């Protein structure tokens, strides 16, 4: 299985290389777009010095966690899942069900979106800068924690987008659900203590995007964490794997329903 996946990644790279000018222009444009959006926040801080008690380097850390987790997670899910609706309707998805291979793995890796490299480059750049600018007492534990939290963040995004994608098997139209995801996702650019309590709860339970960046970064910075408080530190690296489990179950259920096998 690994051989096939590795080969699919190679094929994706090969495809992109054919259109390399457009690919690079697109990456540049995306980096500029995100940098501009982040600059707006910088302008705000430049004027007001703090936002909900967070200074710019801390916010930059928050932003870079969010963008990096999203970049990696979405590369393994977003475009593949968004197009799943059409694939199911046209019957193209059926061709995946007759291969001796996981339909999910084939879907994800044959459509692996290398376009997220732009996000990742910008995020890593910001991450490196902000890590040097914030006041964190770095230990091996903290470093491993940060890595675990980043991996969990990517897994979280991938799971959530996959779960929305799986709805394509049971609903005729599901694309609008992504608007809801992205609407809430944009909120995670800011510290959650900024928002009214119901929204905080939403972002830490039903749509647990708060665990992508706010919770682990607040923990690393020693800031108080809303709603989950002390538990936050432990929950952040676990949120990703937990949601992966949930996504696996839901995916399987939805495909079984699609095949008429009942729940």
């Amino acid at each position, binding site marked *: 299985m690994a051989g096939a996946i590795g080969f699919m990644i190679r*094929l994706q790279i*090969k495809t992109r290389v054919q259109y390399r000018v457009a690919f690079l222009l697109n990456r540049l444009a995306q980096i500029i777009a995100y940098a501009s959006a982040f600059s707006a926040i910088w302008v705000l801080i430049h004027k007001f010095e703090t936002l909900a008690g967070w200074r710019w380097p801390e916010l930059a850390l928050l932003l870079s966690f969010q963008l990096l987790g999203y970049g990696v997670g979405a590369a393994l899910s977003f475009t593949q899942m968004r197009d799943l609706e059409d694939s199911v309707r046209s019957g193209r998805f059926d061709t995946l069900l007759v291969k001796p291979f996981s339909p999910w793995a084939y879907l994800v890796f044959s459509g692996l979106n290398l376009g997220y490299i732009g996000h990742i480059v910008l995020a890593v750049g910001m991450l490196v800068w902000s890590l040097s600018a914030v006041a964190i007492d770095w230990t091996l534990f903290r470093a491993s924690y940060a890595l675990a939290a980043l991996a969990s963040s990517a897994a979280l995004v991938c799971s959530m987008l996959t779960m929305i994608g799986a709805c394509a098997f049971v609903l005729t139209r599901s694309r609008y659900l992504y608007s809801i995801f992205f609407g809430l996702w944009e909120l995670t650019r800011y510290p959650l203590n900024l928002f009214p309590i119901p929204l905080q709860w939403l972002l830490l339970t039903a749509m647990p995007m708060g665990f992508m960046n706010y919770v682990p970064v607040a923990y690393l910075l020693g800031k108080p964490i809303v709603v989950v408080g002390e538990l936050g530190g432990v929950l952040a690296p676990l949120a990703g794997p937990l949601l992966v489990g949930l996504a696996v179950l839901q995916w399987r259920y939805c495909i079984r329903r699609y095949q008429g096998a009942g729940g």
Partner: protein
Amino acid sequence: MPPIIEASAVSKSFRQHKRFPGVLGALKSLFTQQFTEVMAVDGISFEIGRGEAVGYLGPNGAGKSTMIKMLTGILLPTSGSVCVLGRIPHAERSRNARQIGVVFGQRSQLWWDLPLVDSFELHRRIYKIPADRYRDNLARFSELLALGPFLERPVRQLSLGQRMRAEVVMALLHDPQILFLDEPTIGLDVVAKDAVRRFLREVNRERGVTVILTTHDLQDIEQICPRLIVVNEAKLLFDGPLSLLRSALGSKRRLKLEFAADPGPVELPYAKLVSDAGALKHYLIEREDVSLVAVLSDLRDRADLKDLSLEEPSIEELIRSVYAGGDAQGRMSAAPPRGV
């Protein structure tokens, strides 16, 4: 020998959301959900032995694709059972998948932007085909279907005929025991159709691959499949050789005569004139025990006969006849005749 494929009283129904008309209807559909049951396959049974080539024929909407999906494990029957290679295809999806090949007529499995051979290489890895087996199969099949010149070309540059040939080859690279094809010749030009049909016939006869083919092109059946299953409106109508079907129905052959110039009225024995457009005349030969030679005997000495052609009844005509039932002639009984 046990059948390689067995369908027992298989039925499949789908629930479709009822659509209400108008704006109020759209609002209503937000709050209530009513369904209609659509029966795609209704109590169909058949057995297919190893090495057979069977055509699954029917007009659009007859439930052909649904049956193929059940045979390949994509869908589960609502009732009845399907058994392929001794297993329930849906239950052991992966293991079943390894031993079957599937070609979907209108859904390509090839990677669009990359050379054809890359899709084949991926197929090799997914099916874990041993390197030498892969090489031999690829060489042999490419030769048979003349894929050589465009193995290195990106799939998007290939014509539909070339792509279909590639799909068929890809489906056989892993030496499946059964090859399922869902409308493989649709949209192909005559040359491509012929190439694909000959290839499938050879694969079936030389390699013993069981071939199941859905189509609504009778020529596919005639060239590849000795046995034919006819379905219409979810039900099985006929299961047997094509010749049996023709004779069971009393084939009405249509004769088209083209003269150099309008010869005036031309009467033929045993044939009924159905249209007379001067130089072009159509006749219907209703009796099947009459040979064409007898019908044309009077025309033997006519020098002004430019062209003649015999038209077989189309699948739609055959289906209509089958559906209308041949009870009047006592040749079609309630239970469809079983094939060989």
